[in-house]
């Protein structure tokens, strides 16, 4: 079962409903744009969390998959004139290829090699996009992509729907025996091996799943911006995604979605601070991570859920509640 409580389902519906209604209540292309970007970041954050949040193997180069997905979309759409819808499966496939390229040699090792290989993979790809500028358009990137869906609102709903579907799939996986094994890998790899679990297989498979969805998100982003540039591979993108996951609540899958949307909206709301924006943003982040080291979104929801259940049941279920706190 994906959702453990009726309250979870209610909250998920309320959240998706709010996200869907917002652009209808405040119809502006600016808001739709912000929400679209936040939903794409949600896809990236949730896909990062599935691999790294559950197994504890930090991936410092998620932008590698994003950039590969986006450039695949760019090349296919402009050089080969392919239908934009081909970009999604192709972007996923290429991201998976890169995941195997980095994951197969490094995920069998202990130590920081995987994190470093992902980081350098993203940096190398960014440089390569500049070095082979004749083919990649260099700093300018590739321009003139066709949109996936002409209507901006329609595209937003498509991205939102994809985000919901991906989150549901990853949540179901995370709460299955698969997810239990991934969390056990985080706990102790040697014990996993002693229990007969092929640790390397599970790590690589989860990276492949993570990469596929990040690549799809990259392709969507390309067809949203109608342009791709080497900036997509930037390390700062990966760091932003990790920050979103931390704010959302690492390893909770649904939390990072909230974290991503929250931080994208926060960035926009802080525009009025002008040049102080980054300062305020950083201070807010530091405060959140300092006072809430397990994150903001998921822990807050767990507490609220506990409160609501207590209200509903009278205060008769402290035991069930305590158990839920640990869940």
């Amino acid at each position: 079962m994906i959702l453990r409580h009726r309250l979870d389902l209610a909250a998920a519906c309320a959240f998706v409903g709010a996200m869907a209604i917002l652009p209808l209540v405040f119809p502006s292309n600016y808001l739709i744009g912000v929400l679209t970007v936040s939903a794409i970041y949600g896809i990236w954050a949730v896909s990062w969390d599935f691999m790294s949040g559950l197994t504890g193997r930090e991936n410092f180069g998620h932008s590698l998959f994003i950039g590969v997905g986006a450039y695949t979309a760019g090349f296919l759409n402009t050089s080969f004139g392919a239908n934009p819808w081909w970009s999604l499966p192709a972007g996923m496939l290429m991201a998976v290829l890169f995941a195997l390229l980095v994951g197969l040699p490094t995920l069998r090792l202990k130590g920081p090699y995987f994190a470093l290989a992902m980081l350098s993979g993203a940096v190398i790809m960014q440089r390569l996009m500049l070095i082979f500028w004749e083919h990649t358009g260099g700093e300018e990137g590739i321009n003139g992509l066709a949109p996936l869906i002409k209507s901006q609102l329609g595209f937003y709903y498509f991205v939102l729907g994809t985000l919901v579907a991906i989150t549901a799939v990853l949540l179901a996986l995370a709460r299955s025996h698969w997810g239990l094994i991934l969390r056990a890998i985080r706990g102790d790899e040697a014990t996993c091996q002693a229990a007969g679990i092929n640790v390397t297989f599970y790590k690589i498979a989860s990276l492949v799943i993570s990469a596929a969805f990040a690549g799809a998100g990259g392709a969507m982003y390309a067809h949203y911006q109608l342009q791709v540039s080497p900036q997509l591979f930037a390390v700062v993108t990966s760091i932003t995604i990790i920050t979103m996951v931390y704010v959302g609540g690492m390893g909770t899958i649904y939390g990072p979605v909230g974290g991503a949307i929250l931080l994208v909206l926060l960035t926009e709301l802080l525009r009025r601070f002008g040049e102080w924006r980054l300062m305020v943003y950083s201070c807010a982040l530091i405060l959140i991570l300092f006072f809430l080291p397990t994150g903001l979104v998921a822990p807050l929801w767990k507490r609220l859920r506990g409160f609501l259940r207590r209200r509903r049941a009278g205060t008769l279920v402290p035991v069930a509640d305590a158990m839920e706190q640990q869940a």
Partner: protein
Amino acid sequence: MTALLAVANLNKHFGGLHALRDFACTIQRGEIVGILGPNGAGKTTLYNLLTGFIPPDPGARVALDGRSVLGLPPHRIASLGISRTFQLCRPFTGLTVLENVVVGALGAQRERGADLHARGRELLQRVGLAGREQVPVDVLSYGDQRRLEIARALAARPRLLLLDEPFAGLGSGEMADLSALIRQVHAQEGLTVVLIEHKLREFMSLVQRVIALDFGAIIAEGTPEAIVRDPAVIEAYIGRDAEAPEAAHAA
């Protein structure tokens, strides 16, 4: 009938250190065998070699039920039926007690679709951790972590259970409980158990046969009664100040 575990010519060098020297043994089904030896005798190295965590020097033979397991990765060996515990408890931190046991059963996949949670609860009951299923494993006491390790190892339904110093760090009451548990598992399921120990007291009443190691080599083998009178064993133990009181007590 072939022996459950047949080991021959097992050697391991760590650089210049000959950690295990020409080790050989056969273990029959249903036996409880103790591996005795002072610290640094090569006991844990032996386990790591048997379970595939480190590769032995060339020329070794390790066969489970007549089938060579040499060169297989640890998870393959585990799923063939060798479960082990670790000297320092290594639970899956961040998981609950019950989840720890369930993960132990997932690797072997002997019973696809079976209710792993029910079996996990039953195992926890047997090791005396009933009622603590939903507790995060990190808050368990050391003795409880040891019980959990054994429940986790049993969850895989092993044919051979390797326990690495299961009594280390336990009080005498906990030791008696744990011995009773090992005896019970052995009696009920006919499970073959090998355990490592450098303490003699609990060990002696538990095992049927002892293999004594020192400096990586077998120095004696026999019944517990014979082992404690064996001159080589006495020398290995009395020769070490720290171990002397233990050995004297057991003898």
